[in-house]
């Protein structure tokens, strides 16, 4: 088992944190994990992204050059990472901000209105948790409780936000039917 | 339509990598305008620093060389001595000029190198993500002063212009600011004088410009300008600290 994922978006969209929660949860779930943010100059004002690898053997390369799962929180991220994906890879698209899908027909694509949903649930900044839910739904190798536990830990300093973030996560998770594209 | 304010031909027509509201862009434009107004762009060589302005050569339309961190004044010295007919300027941040590179600027100034130095004092290491600079204000929070700069451990903000102005070699040393229109207009004039000095083969010139880093200050661009007005100016007095006429 080897999940080579990339979480990508604007700086400030909570992309690194979402990746971290998954990495922590993976570790707690006794998986081998690595989390490697891009730290290039593209950081400034541009996109931020992090490669998260989950595996049942030691992680060889933390660099993900052909991702099996991509979370694209904005359009430049989709344009950058979709072409690099493995055949059969899962592409999760924040359709609140991205009005296209990838032209590749060898990917499984999921669209979710993450910002809108987060907004509706009362916290526009929790779009990352919505999409994390989708990630959980389509990968599903860590128990839900473990992920939720680490969402709680991640927001331990701001307990007032915990439940809302959990709600967003669950909404994201449940908004995906088990098979295929969802609008 | 005639243009009362137009984009300088000494700038390349490309977007910059600077954060929204970062005043690096303002000063870039002023330098470009001066090169154009003095008609010296075609014999001017800039020296890029290591800092957020490391890519300045992508924006200004004159020849450029890129210096190791802090050494721009030495490069400018070598270039100017070898080719006195060229106009040499460095563009440096406060980490670059006031920290690692203070020796180079001090001695270039003291030797009276006929170069022009644009010194962007934003009180922080912008490019590396917001560490404390020697010019960081007391109590200011940065990633390496997370509880605010503790002057008992790290000292008070370094005053570069004051230090340089004490020395006997004639020079033009000024501090100005770009936190509002009035000061921007004045800054532009001082930059022009700093280049004019070189055109006239007069003296070393340094323009210290109080500048912003909204991103690493954690403020909006507007708040950043207000921060200069309300806080930075308490520690850094504006004015002409030394001019060649005096000496």
């Amino acid at each position, binding site marked *: 088992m080897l999940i080579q994922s990339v979480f990508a978006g604007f700086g400030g969209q909570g992309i690194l944190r979402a990746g971290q929660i998954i990495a922590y949860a993976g570790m707690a779930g006794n998986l081998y994990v690595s989390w490697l943010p891009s730290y290039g100059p593209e950081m400034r004002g541009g996109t931020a992204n992090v490669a998260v690898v989950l595996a049942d053997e030691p992680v060889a390369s933390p660099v993900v050059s052909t991702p099996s799962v991509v979370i694209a929180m904005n359009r430049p991220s989709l344009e950058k990472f979709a072409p690099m994906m493995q055949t059969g890879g899962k592409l999760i698209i924040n359709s609140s901000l991205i009005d296209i899908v990838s032209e590749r027909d060898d990917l499984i694509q999921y669209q979710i209105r993450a910002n809108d949903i987060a907004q509706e649930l009362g916290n526009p900044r929790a779009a990352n948790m919505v999409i994390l839910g989708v990630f959980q739904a389509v990968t599903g190798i860590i128990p839900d409780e473990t992920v939720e536990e680490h969402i709680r830990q991640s927001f331990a300093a701001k307990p007032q936000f915990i439940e809302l973030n959990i709600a967003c996560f669950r909404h994201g998770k449940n908004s995906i039917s088990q098979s295929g594209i969802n609008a | *339509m005639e243009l009362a*304010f137009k*984009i300088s031909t000494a700038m390349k027509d490309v977007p910059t990598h600077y954060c929204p509201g970062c005043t690096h862009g303002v000063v870039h434009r002023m330098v470009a305008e001066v090169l154009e107004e003095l008609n010296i762009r075609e014999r001017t060589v800039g020296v890029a620093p290591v800092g957020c302005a490391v890519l300045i050569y992508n924006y200004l339309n004159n020849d450029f060389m890129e210096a190791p961190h802090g050494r721009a004044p030495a490069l400018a010295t070598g270039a100017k001595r070898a080719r006195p007919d060229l106009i040499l300027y460095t563009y440096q941040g406060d980490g670059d000029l006031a920290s690692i590179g203070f020796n180079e600027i001090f001695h270039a100034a003291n030797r009276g190198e006929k170069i022009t130095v644009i010194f962007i004092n934003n009180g922080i290491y912008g490019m590396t993500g917001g560490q404390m600079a020697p010019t960081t204000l007391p109590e200011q929070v940065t990633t390496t002063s997370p509880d605010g700069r503790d002057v008992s451990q790290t000292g008070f903000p370094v005053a570069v212009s004051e230090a340089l102005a004490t020395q006997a070699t004639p020079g033009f040393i000024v501090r100005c600011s770009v936190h509002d229109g009035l000061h921007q207009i004045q800054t*532009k*004039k001082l930059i022009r004088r700093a280049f004019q000095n070189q055109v006239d083969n007069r003296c070393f010139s340094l323009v210290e410009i109080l500048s912003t880093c909204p991103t690493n200050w954690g403020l909006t*661009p507007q708040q950043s300008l207000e921060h200069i007005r309300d806080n930075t100016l308490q520690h850094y007095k504006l004015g002409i600290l030394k001019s060649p006429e005096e000496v």
Partner: protein
Amino acid sequence: MPRVLIRQERCKGCELCIYACPQHVLAISENINEKGYFFAEVADQPRCIGCRLCAVTCPDQVIQIGLNGVMVHYYDY
């Protein structure tokens, strides 16, 4: 008659021009440009006195000031 010319695709929405304008001519648009910024736009052109402060303050060379007729000389620049 001054005219503010805004290259909206270049604007980073920093709003500095808006605060700089003594006449409240400018405002932030409700739309975003290609780079994802809410850009500056002219909200009230007739109030403009052609003082150029917006252009002087813009860090991104977004603004030019056009002029039909004589320029009022507020300051050298």
